[in-house]
């Protein structure tokens, strides 16, 4: 095996890791602020990809405009999700939140199967089959775009959480909901915004990855369970922790997959999650909304 082989594995790992981070950050934010595990998160990623397919392939809209529209629609969906379903869980009901989001996941997934069938669809852009080649190392341009969007999303979330009053309010609500209320923060408005941003991120992930992976109603399933493992390893609610854990996991997966059978990779991911729950339940970087 030459150096090009190892470099290729590392590059693949970084790209996969940032893709995981894109899905996991929104999940982590929602848990951090609301203490709700959103089992339907993967389905919002799927809906984002489906909408991206519809806009680019059926409506003829340009890809970059599609990314913006899909993210905006996902943010709006987040608002609706909070007001219609999650607001009723205020003040406890962790078990109810699991059942509710799990039910929502099934409704969205089966609804998509009913409407669109499970036939895989591919989003084609003018760059879909363009590859960047440096020596023996290759990567498709659409993966580089997804990588850039993931980094941009992380940067934007950092700015929101640390550079704006609403970000400080989010961190305040995550730390102590009652204390935040006493100093004049409206927890409901903050929670609503956190869900909107979280679902917006999953919509962005769907639009970013629609030209990379086949689009179909069951596509959210595999990613969301990896995202759960990532946010547990990184620390529930800890967005930087989720991002670091995602990239680390992507690289480990890629390197391990380059030497061992692929079926062992998932065992490694979920084995790491179980080990983390046993040895350091608060995760590598601790709980709480922070970056």
């Amino acid at each position, binding site marked *: 095996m030459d150096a090009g082989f190892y470099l290729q594995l590392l590059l693949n790992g970084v790209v996969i890791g940032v893709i995981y981070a894109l899905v996991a950050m929104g999940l982590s934010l929602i848990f951090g602020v609301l203490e709700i595990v959103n089992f339907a998160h993967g389905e919002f990623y799927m809906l984002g990809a489906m909408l991206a397919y519809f806009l680019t392939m059926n409506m003829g809209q340009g890809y970059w405009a599609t990314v913006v529209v899909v993210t905006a629609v996902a943010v709006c969906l987040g608002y609706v999700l909070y007001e219609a379903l999650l607001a009723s869980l205020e003040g406890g009901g962790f078990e109810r939140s699991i059942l509710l989001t799990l039910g929502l996941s099934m409704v969205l997934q089966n609804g998509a199967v009913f409407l669109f069938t*499970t036939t*895989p669809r591919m989003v084609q852009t003018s760059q879909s089959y363009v590859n960047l080649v440096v020596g023996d190392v290759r990567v498709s341009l659409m993966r580089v775009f997804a990588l850039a969007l993931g980094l941009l999303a992380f940067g934007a979330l950092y700015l929101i959480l640390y550079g704006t009053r609403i970000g400080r309010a989010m961190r305040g609500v995550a730390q102590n909901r009652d204390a935040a209320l006493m100093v004049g923060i409206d927890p409901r408005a903050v929670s609503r915004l956190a869900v909107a941003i979280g679902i917006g991120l999953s919509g962005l992930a769907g639009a970013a990855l629609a030209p990379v992976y086949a689009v179909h109603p*069951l596509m959210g399933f595999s*990613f969301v369970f990896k995202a759960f493992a990532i946010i547990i390893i990184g620390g529930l609610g800890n967005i930087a922790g989720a991002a670091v854990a995602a990239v680390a996991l992507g690289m480990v997966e890629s390197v391990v997959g380059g*030497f061992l059978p692929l*079926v062992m990779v998932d065992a490694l991911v979920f084995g790491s999650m179980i080990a983390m729950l046993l040895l350091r339940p608060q995760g590598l970087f601790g709980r709480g909304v922070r970056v």
Partner: protein
Amino acid sequence: MRRMRLVVAVAALAALAYSGFAQSQEGPILIGASIPLTGGVSMFGQHSRWGAELAAAEANAKGGVLGRKVEIDFQDNRCNPAEAVKSVTQMLAEKKYVAIFDGLCSSAALAIMPLVERAGIPFVVANASATSIAERSGVGGNKWTFKVNPTDASMLDALVGWLDKEGKAGNIAFLGEDSDFGRAGSTGLESALKKRNLKLAAVDFFQKGNADFTPVLTKIKARKPGLLALYAVDADFQNAIRQWYGLGGGVPLTGRVLVDQVPKEIMESGFLDGTTSVQPYDPSVDTPGNKAFVEAFRKLHNVPPILVSFESYEAMKVLIDAIRRAGKADPAAIRDALATTKMPSMLGTVIDFDDHNLAHNNAIILTIKGGKVVVLGMSKT
């Protein structure tokens, strides 16, 4: 008075039983089909349904079978053995079906086999390709299961024969889904190579629904195989083929490659030139029967048939022919008639079953040349 009531009750029950019997002898002949109508491979389930329905419609247009219409009741098995057992158990409990059809996925078909054996009802496998289905049928096994399509082992033997003639069989890497389909592919290739004192260069499996194949494809590329046997369907195939292209695989594919599902841009780029695939069917097969089938199918559904539509169409024709020759809609008589089938296939052979209730139709050897799919020829399985 009590005796009178008893007589009336017995008479009522007898009348009820007779009316059911009379209905089963005079109504349509019912065939129960268990296929994936939802789930990851429902697209194949849809094609299986279209193929079987076309065969039934053609029979009905000619006056039906034994003077009765043929109807197929499709139940969903989601390509899941547990769902297949559930759907077939329900159908068998109703005792109104004369045969069970397809299963489509190998795992589902294997799960259905013991049920039909216990119930004593014929099971016609149209699409599932696992070699173990035939190994467990006929002599010394399940006498109610009949497999119309070729097994993976027989198709791969035909393919490896072609590759060996061209000196390309010596360095094949295998990547397949971790299911009966993928496992049958790897064992089929291994045994076909073993007959020629060769072996697979590498074997890897992946979980169905896996989105990212770049780690394993990077590994395979570094091993520099001569060919890559890819056993993936649906979204897995789309993801794997795109990522193979993205990594500049540089190695053509082989095995049961779904050449009709390769993205146009990749196909036309010539990236897959040299790919040699074996399939039970290709719409471009130049026989009068196939041309008529393709035209009728296109007219109904606006898409060309795929191998699943063909296999279900021809397997349903085999079943209908057996019902006709049995002379009555009785499962045991249909089973006996199936065993003596001699029906011309659209692929130019005569379909008949061997001791393991397996038909040996032609397999199509395809290649990709200049960005286009070309039929190299047909080989008896």
